[in-house]
């Protein structure tokens, strides 16, 4: 059975986010008012073939720790989709 997940990866607090800062500035330069903090993140959508939803989620979590997220700089959450 195929299960789908979205992994949300964000940058840890305190780290600078040049892309976010630059994009925020660009929005203000374009005349948008009231633009506060702008932060960048990534999502990875995966299809996993496994026996159960839980088994699949465990796999995805392992993938995040091994490859998808960089524990030194990033935190992640796993969301099941259907």
């Amino acid at each position, binding site marked *: 059975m195929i299960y789908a997940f979205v992994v949300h990866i964000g940058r840890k*607090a*305190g*780290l*600078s*986010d040049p892309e976010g800062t630059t994009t925020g500035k660009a929005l203000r330069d374009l005349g948008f008012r009231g633009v506060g903090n702008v932060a960048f993140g990534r999502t990875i959508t995966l299809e996993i073939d496994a026996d159960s939803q839980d088994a699949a989620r465990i796999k995805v979590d392992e993938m995040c720790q091994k490859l998808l997220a*960089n524990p*030194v*700089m990033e935190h992640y959450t796993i969301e099941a989709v259907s």
Partner: protein
Amino acid sequence: MTTQETPTHIQLGMTDTEYESVIDVLGREPRPAELAMYSVMWSEHCSYKSSRSHLGRFRSDQPWVVVGPGENAGVVDLGDGWLAALRIESHNHPSFVEPYQGAATGVGGILRDIFTMGARPIAVWDPLRFGPLDDARNRYLLEGVVSGIAGYGNAVGVPTLGGEVEFADRFSKNPLVNVMALGILKREQLVLSAASGKGNVAVLLGNATGRDGIGGASILASASFEEGDAEKRPSVQVGDPFEEKKLIETCLELYDRGLVIAIQDLGAAGISCATSETAGNGGMGMDVDLDAVHVREPGMTPGEVLMSESQERMLAIVSPDRLDEVLDVAMKWEIDASTIGTVTEGPELKVYAGGDLVAEVPAASLTDDAPRYERPACRPGYLDTAWARDPVIPDDIDAGGTLRVLLDDPAIGDRSWISSQYDHMLFLDTVIEPGHDGSLLRIKGTHKAMAVSTDGDSLRTYLDPRRGAARIVFESALNVAVTGARPYALVDNLNFGNPEIPGVMWQFIEVVDGMAWACEELDVPVVGGNVSFYNQTDGIDIYPAPVVGMLGFCDPMPEHPPRLDRAEEGMAIWIVGQDPQGDFAASAYDRVVNGNLGGRPLDVDGEVARRVVAGAAKLAFEVPVLHDISFGGLAVALAEIAFASGIGFAIEGVSGRDLFDETPLRFIAAARSDDLDTSVPHARVGTVGGDLLDFGQAGSMPLSEGKAIWGDALPRRMR
């Protein structure tokens, strides 16, 4: 966090005696912020307390030296008003923690050292050392470091023109990431870091200050000071090449318009270091207002702002009546700027926050009064056992079979997996690109050119620190000489283990002696460098890894500089320089084929070095192909020419043993002539042609097969 038991200064890595001398300097107990400042400024990294007393042995009094060691970068005179600025730095630990950002911010840091001098940075080199690539973690580090250098260097718009890479077990948990940068300027643009003129103002340019890499963190968070938000302090710094690019253009425009009196980049200890150094170097003082600093996030404590090591920031000392012009230039380039200080008679550096005085120290004391140590040194025991493990080398080595093994070694195979990820063509000055012995850059509008080679050889240096160090100086000299340049100035990066271990300190002293001697012999000034101690993996010290960056200079440059890809059918092949003397200690053959590391590397005669280097530089104006013989010996050097030119060769009368001998100060010449016009001893050994790497009775292998193995050595491991 502070605890009752351990005094704060100990937590900050200060000895009791060091703490005592802080009290002597101040005549009282330091305030928390002051203690944080001294703890960082008097650290090994900032104060060179273990190495300083030895570095004095390097000479830099040659007439063409404009600025020697001590400033942000060394500067030499290229004639007609042109100057070159060069510097090398290490970013070893951050690159292990996070390879991409660690290497990226390393590039950013070394570039600031260059444009702080008034120079436009024009090129970068990246000497790298990793553990063996059969370990996934080491592959991850190589991948990350190379993309970090590419990601930052390419985007900031400074080409990376080469480097070198070594693989050995002792770098597994402590990779070495050194970065060298070169800049060019006209004499009138030279700027130094000594603030002058009471009433002049200090302008902080560039990135907003965040909670990055804060030294003395524990005391800053301690209740006695103010509540710092410790978990908000990131363990990694993120590089912003776009901000750096704008900062470069801003500073260069400020120099052009004569708006800068002195300038200093912000590195370790951030604002506290930059303000105290500019003031101290000028024999002045400074009043600093931390409330004026533009910050990245709310709620930062004064201590955090003072000590933050946020990247891409500069401190410029400017005259108050030109301040508006300075701010206009910053605004044009969309760079944030804040006026944070005023130069005073001194000698005090006074730091205010929220109206309170948080620090008041003699500006110069942070640098001048730093401790110096004569650390005990003694010859380590491993040397005798290592020397006893003499390489066992047969006379009748089969060249073909051996090359199949050596060409697949990642330190011998094609390095373009690395260099093709770097922009190495920007500015249209790269006459000789990565893949040759040294890179050659022309200076447009003149006939001048600069050549650079970075070299290190940690295993040979391990077997004999003094000889190993001298030999990398000579190799780098030959690497620039074969492009037509004469060795002109050198920067060094001394990567070592724990200096509190006498054996390591002995290695360090031997290396400095060997390097200083070799530079004397070649009359090459040492204009700058960097020392990185405490490199250990699993408690074992790394192999001693001095790295040199040699700047060569020629005026005029050769019209057609020698290249590896200019060999053609029928050219005669010569070996120029010393005869092979059976130098196999730490050779590719002994390490890769025998799996041994032992014996004692040959010594080198300074007179021979001078003659061979000068001979190569002269031949470079007449001969289409020159290539120095280094790791892997004659066989590998010839193969590299064949691969680049796409044509084979036939060698006669060289024994299998001599093909892999690594006796230094030898190079290959290929030319259409019956003899070479040189006084350096030389012998014809064969002819260019065919599609074989043909070593006569020593064996052979098809060019195509050798090239395939050589070309895939790195890619196949990184796939």
